[in-house]
């Protein structure tokens, strides 16, 4: 079997409103990833991307001739949105290790900061949501996660002030981490008191509990170890897993009987531990899909990093910040770095493991877990230095 490495990372860093179309960000990120890996577009022989947003943003059919790829021998669409971005990278790993391709490009970008309807547009296109939820004002993920947070607090006996401290603690850590990242979109400190003074958007969620809107793109290149220069052989995908709960996307946030638990996320953690022989919690940094502050909380618990209902103590200690015992979303995440649906999380993890992070380096880190869902589907990547 061929050893696969994450050889190239390219970013068009997130900004609120660039006025540029997503294709412009995507080509910038892809060019940067190829340059980072030290290969040219003609070397690329595989392309895999997220299945829902990317086919209309920049299809593989349009990308291949635009890059001048001459020898495409592997292509695939993974699954929708965040979990799909991670799954594309995982599938690239599989394509390379199986020998089906040598250099597999994955890419993802959005221009929701300038043009799109954002995530509400995706959710509004589902018929049950349009018929049943929107007419009473129950629109989009913000309200799903608000009701989830309230249910979480009730299940674990958290008072309203305790829930406020928990969510606020996650939001503050994201902002503190973003403050150190030279390309983060929101570099403004936030104190817990300032957080508490914010008005509710959807009680119990405030402005700082909610992800940003961004323009930007990320490209990740996975290559055969022997096909790239030695300094790009340093990071590999040591394990990965993907799971889907058997419920339609449109029903998940109102009808899943397991809420506020996330069985797909837990199953991913279990499979990683089984295949790797090490738990998700063993990773030196965690980069978790934090569309809302509460998403970080439920993920930490579903992944087994904290015990159910017990995340508050960890958050109160500042553990999620760089320098804390459990550095999480070291770039600031979707809450403060930018809303690229998890693509930047992968880029940040790779830079952490190269010991080349942009102001956010966690000292001596040699493993990272990156995960996205969390919801009906989840994908986790456990990345490791090849010298670890």
């Amino acid at each position, binding site marked *: 079997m061929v050893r696969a490495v994450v050889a190239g990372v390219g970013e068009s860093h997130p900004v609120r409103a660039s006025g540029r179309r997503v294709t412009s960000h995507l080509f910038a990120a892809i060019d940067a990833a190829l340059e980072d890996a030290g290969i040219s577009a003609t070397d690329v022989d595989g392309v895999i991307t997220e299945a829902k947003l990317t086919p209309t943003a920049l299809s593989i059919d349009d990308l291949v001739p635009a890059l001048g790829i001459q020898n495409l021998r592997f292509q695939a669409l993974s699954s929708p949105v965040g979990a799909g971005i991670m799954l594309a990278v995982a599938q690239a790993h599989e394509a390379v290790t199986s020998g089906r391709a040598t250099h597999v490009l994955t890419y993802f970008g959005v221009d929701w900061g300038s043009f799109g309807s954002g995530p*509400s547009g995706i959710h*509004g296109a589902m*018929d*049950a949501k349009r*018929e*049943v*939820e*929107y*007419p*009473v*004002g*129950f*629109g*989009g993920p*913000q*309200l799903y996660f*608000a*009701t*989830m947070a*309230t*249910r979480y607090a*009730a*299940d674990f006996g958290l008072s309203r002030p305790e829930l406020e401290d928990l969510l606020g603690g996650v939001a503050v850590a994201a902002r503190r981490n973003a403050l150190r990242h030279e390309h983060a979109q929101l570099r403004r400190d936030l104190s817990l008191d300032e957080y508490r003074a914010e*008005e*509710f*958007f*959807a*009680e*119990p*969620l405030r402005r700082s509990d909610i992800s940003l809107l961004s323009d930007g793109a990320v490209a990740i290149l996975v290559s055969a170890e022997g096909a790239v220069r030695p300094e790009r052989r340093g990071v590999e995908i040591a394990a990965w897993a993907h799971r889907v709960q058997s419920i*339609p996307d*449109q*029903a998940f946030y*109102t*009808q899943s*009987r397991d*809420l506020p638990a996330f069985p797909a996320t837990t199953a991913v953690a279990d499979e990683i531990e089984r295949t790797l022989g090490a738990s998700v919690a063993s990773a030196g940094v965690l980069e978790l899909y934090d569309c809302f502050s509460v998403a970080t909380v439920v993920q930490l618990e579903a992944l087994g990093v904290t015990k159910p209902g017990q995340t508050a103590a960890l958050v109160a200690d500042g553990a999620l910040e760089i320098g804390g015992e459990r550095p999480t979303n070291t770039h600031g995440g979707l809450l403060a770095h930018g809303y690229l649906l998890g693509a930047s999380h992968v880029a940040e993890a790779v830079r952490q493991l190269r010991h080349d992070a942009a102001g956010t380096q966690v000292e001596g880190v040699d493993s990272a877990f990156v995960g996205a869902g969390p919801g009906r589907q989840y994908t986790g990547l456990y990345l490791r230095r090849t010298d670890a």
Partner: protein
Amino acid sequence: MPESRDDDLYKPRREGLENGVIRLTRCARCKVVEWYPLARCVHCRNEAWEWFDIDPRGRVHSWCRVVRPTVPIDGLEAPYVLALIEVEEAEGARIVALAEDPTQTPMVGDAVRLTTQSVAGAAQPHFVLAPAGS
């Protein structure tokens, strides 16, 4: 109860709401409640769904108070309270409903009665907290 048609699946639901009843879908053959309806019944492989009237008693699964609306609705002034109401008689299916009294703060587990009220010219599910002991 009429079987649903693909071209306007939710019409019986809207007609029910106008008559003060809330309807959900169940398999037309094995009668298992599936809300929202799937492409096919997982239990008996039947592809047809039928609508049935639910008992209007339920419990608050969770709730939120919307201060900044994410979808604008004519005549629905923020802040308003939305809840997911779990209906035991319907195998735990949850109804998204507006609080009739937006100043109320529900609690998870509260017993409620489902009602219908007009929102933007169409009847929609609402709830009121049930008196203790009911």
